[in-house]
């Protein structure tokens, strides 16, 4: 199908984008790999698209004060090639190849994936597992929101209608950092039936600060807190059992909730193995 008519404006700066977004029915256009598909299918009908692709400086990757900041317009393919991300954000590096296909990753952006907040998408779960932060510019100025407070509901986030996500910030991996990533999809590049992004800190032979962010199991990426505690106590079996309490995946076109719950346990075992080894 073809999109319904809309207006289009190129933002010259973040401030200009925020100003343009003040119009009723305006939406940000970044990589467009989800948005334009929904326009073509007439699932969304904005009155104005505010194209942020030409704003200079939003495509940078920089290390600052123990964090790595990834600009909103960094393309997935650019992030895949970035040595800084491989080193400082190994969880993101592991997740990136699972996103769509090469042509999608050439155009899709890190900021777009987070802002769109598809509950079955990889990067929102990574942000949550890493306890990252989201940098936002809005009518009242700049602010940052912690990942735990960012995802509100199905495709709903802390972003207001006139807000622009400008970057995400992740803690730089250290020697003690452990990460794990696994997902099950029917075909490579499809949205996951179930996925898991995880981070922890090695403390001798034990794990601390375990954060398990499941995706494809609810309206947002979901932390499995009892399973986190069990893994920190070195008890994987209890962790898998705890998923029964922590996750309540609804049935969808991919699988029933019961199947998803079972698969979540399978993934937890795989990821626990990854967490037991240093990041290569």
């Amino acid at each position, binding site marked *: *199908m073809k999109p319904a008519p809309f207006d289009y404006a190129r933002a010259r700066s973040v401030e200009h984008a925020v100003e343009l977004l003040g119009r009723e029915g305006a939406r940000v256009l970044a990589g467009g790999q989800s948005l334009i598909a929904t326009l073509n299918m007439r699932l969304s009908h904005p009155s104005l698209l505010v194209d942020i692709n030409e704003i200079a400086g939003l495509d940078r990757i920089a290390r600052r004060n123990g964090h790595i900041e990834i600009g909103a317009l960094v393309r997935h*393919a650019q992030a895949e090639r970035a040595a800084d991300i491989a080193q400082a954000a190994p969880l993101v590096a592991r997740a990136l190849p699972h996103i769509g296909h090469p042509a999608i990753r050439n155009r899709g952006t890190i900021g777009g994936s987070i802002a769109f907040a598809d509950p079955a998408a990889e990067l929102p779960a990574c942000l949550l597992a890493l306890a990252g932060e989201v940098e936002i510019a809005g009518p009242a100025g700049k602010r940052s929101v912690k990942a735990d407070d960012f995802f509100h509901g199905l495709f709903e986030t802390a972003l207001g209608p006139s807000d622009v996500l400008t970057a995400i910030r992740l803690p730089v991996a250290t020697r003690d950092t452990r990460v794990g990533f696994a997902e099950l999809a029917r075909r490579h590049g499809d949205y996951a039936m179930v996925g898991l992004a995880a981070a922890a800190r090695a403390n001798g032979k034990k794990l601390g600060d375990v954060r398990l962010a499941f995706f494809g199991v609810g309206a947002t990426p979901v932390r499995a807190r009892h399973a986190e505690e069990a893994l920190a106590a070195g008890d994987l079996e209890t962790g898998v059992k705890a998923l029964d309490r922590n996750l309540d995946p609804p049935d969808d076109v991919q699988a029933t909730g019961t199947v998803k719950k079972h698969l979540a346990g399978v993934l937890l075992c795989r990821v626990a193995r990854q967490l037991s080894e240093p990041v290569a």
Partner: protein
Amino acid sequence: MSAHEITLTVNGEEVREAVDARTTLVDFLRDTLGLTGSHVGCEHGVCGTCSVRLDGVVVRGCLTLAVQCDGHKVETIEGASDSGALADLQETFRTRNALQCGYCTPAMLLTAAELLARGDVPSRAAIREYLSGNYCRCTGYHAIVDAVEAVARARAGATS
């Protein structure tokens, strides 16, 4: 919903046209410029038949708006083919019977060319993964993977 004046480079030539904001890049190329080598399949980014190069990288022509290409460089299968850069790949697709209806072929060529541009000989699994965003309904992919692998080997042999 006014028309937008855009100026872009298509296959090395400057093009100036007025487009509606909602016109996708692939529709612009086909309907306005008559470049029908880029095909329209699913129109939501799944099948890959609309693949074109934007500023040197392969993108979905159905998930890019023509108006976004103002000031940018687009290359289609027509340009890539005329340049001769795909000649060995095209010839090997023919000899390996890596197409039947040909609907997916222009996009398969552009995507395979991007993989081959890395310069190594990718594994068959890596070829399949790279082409996973391009759907083919007739040849079952096997001959396509054969062709891409054969070109990678031939190019590696030719340079070593």
